[in-house]
């Protein structure tokens, strides 16, 4: 739908307690024994990071060889909000009632969603937050929507299993959650999944593919071969609204 109008460009600095003071805090560890040399090293790093002036407010030995620091300081950098690129939601946010109604009118049957964590990923927290009736942040999960039929395959589903289950369930949409990110497992998993669906379905019959997880960049959809990527903090309502938009009202399912 319509993208919200971009915010007017604005130049800002971090805010400590006064507009424009540019104050930030950071903490880090250096592999240097605690002492004057360590604190000097911390200040040097802070300076190179653009903190001027910088204050080491806390330094503590961690074992014989390391020191932990908390540093406060002023940054000179300016942030131009006009230069920031983000993906704004390009579909209307619907309440469960509105979503149910749209599906009933537009699809004349229940919308079928299948979801799970693929590969070795056993972290179902994300997919459960979206699918389970319990939901997330007070927003009820897709199971709560009367017009959405949810099949939650849970953890460690193989890609062939997912494709097979999607066929069996005649899924309209496939939701995949990937939490484990070591060695880019989430990216590789998502690509493998989208490739398998492309292979298994004729283009016009392929279900809508959605991946989500805390470490995904929402701009990666094309690279991953999926229709939508959801990042950290996504609510079930946003996912439901997207599915209604893609499959019922928007008519632009890939």
């Amino acid at each position, binding site marked *: 739908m319509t993208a919200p109008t971009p915010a007017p460009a604005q130049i800002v600095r971090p805010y400590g307690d006064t507009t424009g003071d540019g104050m930030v805090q950071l903490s880090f*560890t250096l592999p240097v024994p605690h002492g004057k040399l360590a604190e000097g090293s911390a200040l040097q790093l802070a300076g190179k990071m653009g903190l001027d002036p910088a204050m080491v407010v806390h330094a503590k030995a961690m*074992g014989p060889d390391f020191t*932990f620091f908390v540093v406060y300081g002023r940054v000179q950098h300016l942030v131009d909000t006009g230069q920031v690129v983000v993906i704004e939601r390009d579909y209307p946010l619907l309440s469960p009632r509105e979503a149910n109604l749209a599906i009933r009118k537009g699809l004349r049957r229940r919308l079928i969603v299948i979801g799970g964590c693929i590969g070795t990923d056993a972290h179902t927290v994300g997919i459960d937050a979206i699918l389970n009736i319990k939901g997330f942040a007070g927003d009820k999960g897709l199971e709560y929507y009367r017009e959405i039929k949810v099949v939650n395959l*849970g953890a*460690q589903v193989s890609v062939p299993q997912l494709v097979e289950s999607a066929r069996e369930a005649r899924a309209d949409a496939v939701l995949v959650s990937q939490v*484990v990110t*070591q060695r880019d497992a989430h990216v590789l998993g998502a690509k493998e999944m989208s490739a398998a669906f492309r292979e298994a379905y004729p283009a016009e019959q392929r279900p809508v593919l959605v991946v989500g997880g805390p470490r995904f960049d929402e701009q990666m959809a094309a690279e991953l071969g999926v229709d939508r990527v959801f990042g950290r903090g996504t609510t079930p309502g946003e996912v439901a609204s997207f599915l209604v938009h893609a499959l019922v009202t928007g008519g632009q399912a890939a």
Partner: protein
Amino acid sequence: MPARSTPVLDLDPATIRRARSLARKVGRPVVRMAKQHTTVSVERATLRMAGLGGADPDGTPWANRLLDTVRGDVGLEHGVCLPVWDALLRGEAGDLAELAGKASVGSVRFRLPEGRDATRAAAAADKAVGVGLRRIDARRRERERLVKRWGDPEQTPWVYLIVATGDIYEDMPQAQQAARAGADVIAVIRSTGQSLLDFVPEGPTREGYAGTYATQENFRLMRAALDESSKELGRYVRLTNYASGLCMPEIATLAGLERLDMMLNDSMYGILFRDINPVRTFVDQRFSRQVHARAGIIINTGEDNYLTTADAVDAAHTVTVSQLLNECFAKEAGLADWQLGLGHAFEIDPDVPDSFRLELAHALLARQLFPKAPLKWMPPTRHMSGDVFRGYLLDGFFNLAGMLTGQGILLVGMMTEAVVTPWLSDRDLALQNVRYVRNAAGGLAEDFHPAPDGLIARRARRVLAESIDLLERILDHAEPDFGAGLLAAIADGTFGLMRRPADGGRGLDGVVRLAPGYVNPARDLLDGAP
């Protein structure tokens, strides 16, 4: 480990007895079913106990190669021992390793011996397995000796820290540093997905995903590193790993052989969270727990997992029910109270009013239901949002609840939970948090007597009542078939909202129903163990 003994909640002893007797009733048919089956992993564990280690050049363990060949030739209904020791007695090979090598290239045919041949094969197997069990016994005595020499931690709860770099050679110095910084127990978490491997990897390993593979050599290396630390620090530092997934029995055996001290071992975790076949899980679990009992290993159960997928208030009673079932299966397998690290977790949404009082109610209920067990207290994960400052506060309250309710083992919470794998500084800050709370309030349990009819006491009674309801509902699933009560309840999503039918899940093809004449000396010796 000294446990708090004075009860502070007014719970009706008759109700507690009823809860336990219902749990036993639920457990009984499952145990019967476990005794009527074997699995590929139980049989491989038996071979390992008899001394078969190592792997072929492709990394497939000899235990797997030998077992698969035997199974292909004569099936597993009679156990792996009769055909294997029959072949050895026929002179097909000098020892198990050689036999496995020959079997894998197809130069041995196995048969099921009968009559006197069968008797002789069984006797030979019995002798070989007995040697392995005696090695496990010796490692247990060695632990007892070292604990006496170096001593237990001075205080409870024991501080439990996780190390997991994926590389055993990185893990060792990190674990030693963690011990120096105050950890009493080091857990090396496993590589993601090891649960679903139907073999135990071999040798020292340097790559894993979000954890380090559990192998016999990694166990040995890490135990040796912690023995050094124990000596240096003057207290025995314990080592934990995971006997869960498809290879529970084998990993339990390796843990016993390498003197690990604690093992994660839950009766239903694999079923619910890994989609492992329920029958496979219960058979494997019983054998692995018998080995743990024999090895003097403390098990840690996984009830915290329920609360990562279900609401910690609504699902509090599923934790209690799981603890009761874990206790019942553990006792049946020969584990003593001091070996039961029953799990529970601090996972209530901090935005819920009175969330801390509710946590205290749940923690006290567990403490009082299992007064002699060293409960395993697990930190918040679900509501760790990435706001590390708020997370640090939450961990402080978690530590306070642990001290206040006399928990035995405290898994140290990290403020960077759900953000990064713990940094050096995260661990240090987390231990400072524990130390502060222990110094400031370690003895507060003495002064803490919740009002007899206050929110905490009422909440505990309610969770106990809901637990009894749930156990009754499980029994209502009972059908004439064995195990139907609990298996049917698992199938319809009673636990953790996951539906796991008894004829589904991974590892089902590794389950075999016993035929008359089945022989497995490991099972006989463990069943007969005091």
